[in-house]
């Protein structure tokens, strides 16, 4: 049987599979369908310093092989997260990555400072790439200096691993990745959703109240693969690759492109057991192909 264990920075994962932030809560809603302890790691929905209500109106739209969302990082804030979600996560035996969101550099730091008091948290994913909030989010992730400023401030606030979660909505994602690594990021997580729009021709209005949203699902996989590979060639740190992964083949493509771990996102909405299917499929494929250790696949793309 192939060895699926992988090392992601300071974390040891039973297999390279985690979930994309915002598609899985902290796993509670999926407990009916999957054994959460089988995940390589659990990644939380975005957590902010204060409660965020998210966006009003229609929040999703189905698009060809994908979906747009405009949730807007609705979350109860870090205090409620610690009180209501962490005790539940504590019972799991799985590395826990918390996705951190903010409107300002100070807000990101506030979240981390609060979470530093909690032993359940193993690493942070710094979300500088959400397209659905007006302040912060993607505005940090599209400028190397702004991205570096957030990462540097978070770096100072913790010794735990910090992953910069990047947006694909840039000209050169490698430049942003390098700026984040120079500012102290232990790894890079990408891609967040692709900025998109859906229009209702009858009302002549955008389907989403905010006009634009973030595209996810199989439609974005080729974009994600290209960006993961570009970042793999630009930096030395581990990469969590994501964007349209719904089966083992997709996941293996990301490993070959240079990802150390992969995240299943929108596929969880379609098949709540998607993470398990991906893990089982990677193992089966490795066995069939004579791959003894899944780590052999990382960046093994032949060019």
């Amino acid at each position, binding site marked *: 049987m192939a060895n699926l264990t992988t090392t992601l920075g300071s974390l040891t994962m039973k297999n390279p599979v985690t979930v994309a932030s*915002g*598609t*899985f*809560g902290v796993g*509670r*809603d*999926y407990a*009916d*369908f999957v054994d959460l302890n089988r995940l390589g790691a659990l990644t939380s929905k975005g957590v902010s310093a204060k409660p965020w*209500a*998210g966006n009003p109106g*229609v*929040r*999703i*739209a*189905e698009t*060809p*092989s*994908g*979906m747009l*969302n405009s*949730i807007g990082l*609705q979350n109860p804030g870090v205090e409620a997260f610690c009180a209501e979600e962490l005790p539940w996560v504590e019972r799991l035996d799985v590395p826990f990555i918390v996705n951190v969101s903010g409107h300002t550099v100070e807000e990101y730091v506030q979240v981390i400072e609060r979470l530093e008091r909690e032993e359940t948290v193993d690493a942070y994913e710094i979300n500088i790439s959400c397209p659905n909030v007006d302040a912060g989010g993607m505005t940090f992730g599209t400028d190397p200096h702004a991205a570096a400023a957030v990462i540097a401030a978070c770096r100072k606030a913790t010794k735990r691993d910090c992953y910069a979660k990047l947006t694909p909505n840039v000209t050169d994602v490698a430049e942003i990745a390098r700026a984040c690594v120079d500012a102290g990021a232990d790894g890079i997580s990408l891609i967040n959703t692709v900025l998109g729009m859906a229009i209702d021709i009858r009302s002549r209005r955008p389907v989403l109240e905010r006009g634009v949203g973030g595209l996810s*699902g*199989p439609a974005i996989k080729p974009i994600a693969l290209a960006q993961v590979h570009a970042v793999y060639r630009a930096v030395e740190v581990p990469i969590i690759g994501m964007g349209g992964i719904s089966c083992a083949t997709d996941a293996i493509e990301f490993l070959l492109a240079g990802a150390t771990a992969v995240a299943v996102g*929108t596929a*969880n*909405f*379609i*098949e*709540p*057991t998607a993470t398990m299917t991906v893990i089982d499929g990677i193992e089966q494929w490795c066995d069939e192909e004579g791959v003894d250790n899944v780590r052999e696949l990382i960046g093994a793309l032949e060019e």
Partner: protein
Amino acid sequence: MSDERYPRGSSDEPIGGETASANDSCAEDAARAGRALLEEVRVLDNYEEAPGVWVIALESPRVASLIRPGQFVHLRLTGFEAHILRRPISVYGTDAEAGFIELMYQVVGSGTDWMTKLEEGDVLDLIGPLGQGWRPPLCARRALLVTGGLGAAPLTMLAEELIDAGVEVETVMGAPTAQRLVCRERLEGDGRGMVQVATDDGSEGLHGFSTVLAEERLQAAHDGLIEPYDYIAVCGPAPMMRIVCATVARLAPQALCEISLEKRMACGIGACLSCVVETVDGLKRSCKDGPVFAAEEVVW
């Protein structure tokens, strides 16, 4: 409609394969504890009940035995993968013994249009039972059900259950035209329930909306001309439900009023926060905290 309409599939092979059968007992334990199942289901029938309104019957023994009125299933359209999302559809009828459920759907887009092409024997999968259904008070004696269009479908099982429990059930239905007054027979419950209808085009019953009929009934109860209602359940387009809720608040504030709110959903199990509803207690998820909400809880 006869329950013998959908005999069990001729094949003895349980769909879902070995895993599903092996997990049967633990899956059912899980569902009894209010948890959801993932079930492969076979199409037993799929027919046009009224112009543009279809009924699909699915062999789904586990969900059929567990689903409660007002709950829904989240259907995956196998073979239609470019449209990635599941379709949430409320359950219109169920027969636990025969192991099937019936869903009513209106053809409104490419997904529902594709569904009309499904034939007996096709296999889909669904997650269910999902959501909080209707919660009529145990002591209810008289209920008023108010429907608009396809909003009648999530109320049929409730009507049947209330009637069987000896509750007096009156229904006021609205539809664009007489042919679209779907679910009427079931709401009438073999003559044990009373149904009044309204149509937008005046082709049957009141020329107008069911909101007007609802107001008439509630006014009559308020004026002591008929016995008061202690439970009111509403399902239809949002503006119609808002009007009925306001009427109930004015004329029957002592009654429990519930509404079923359907929002656009992705996961259907509470994780994605696509389908949130504004309530007096903050944002709630239509898929998990609803789709049925107490009227007084909802902020319009």
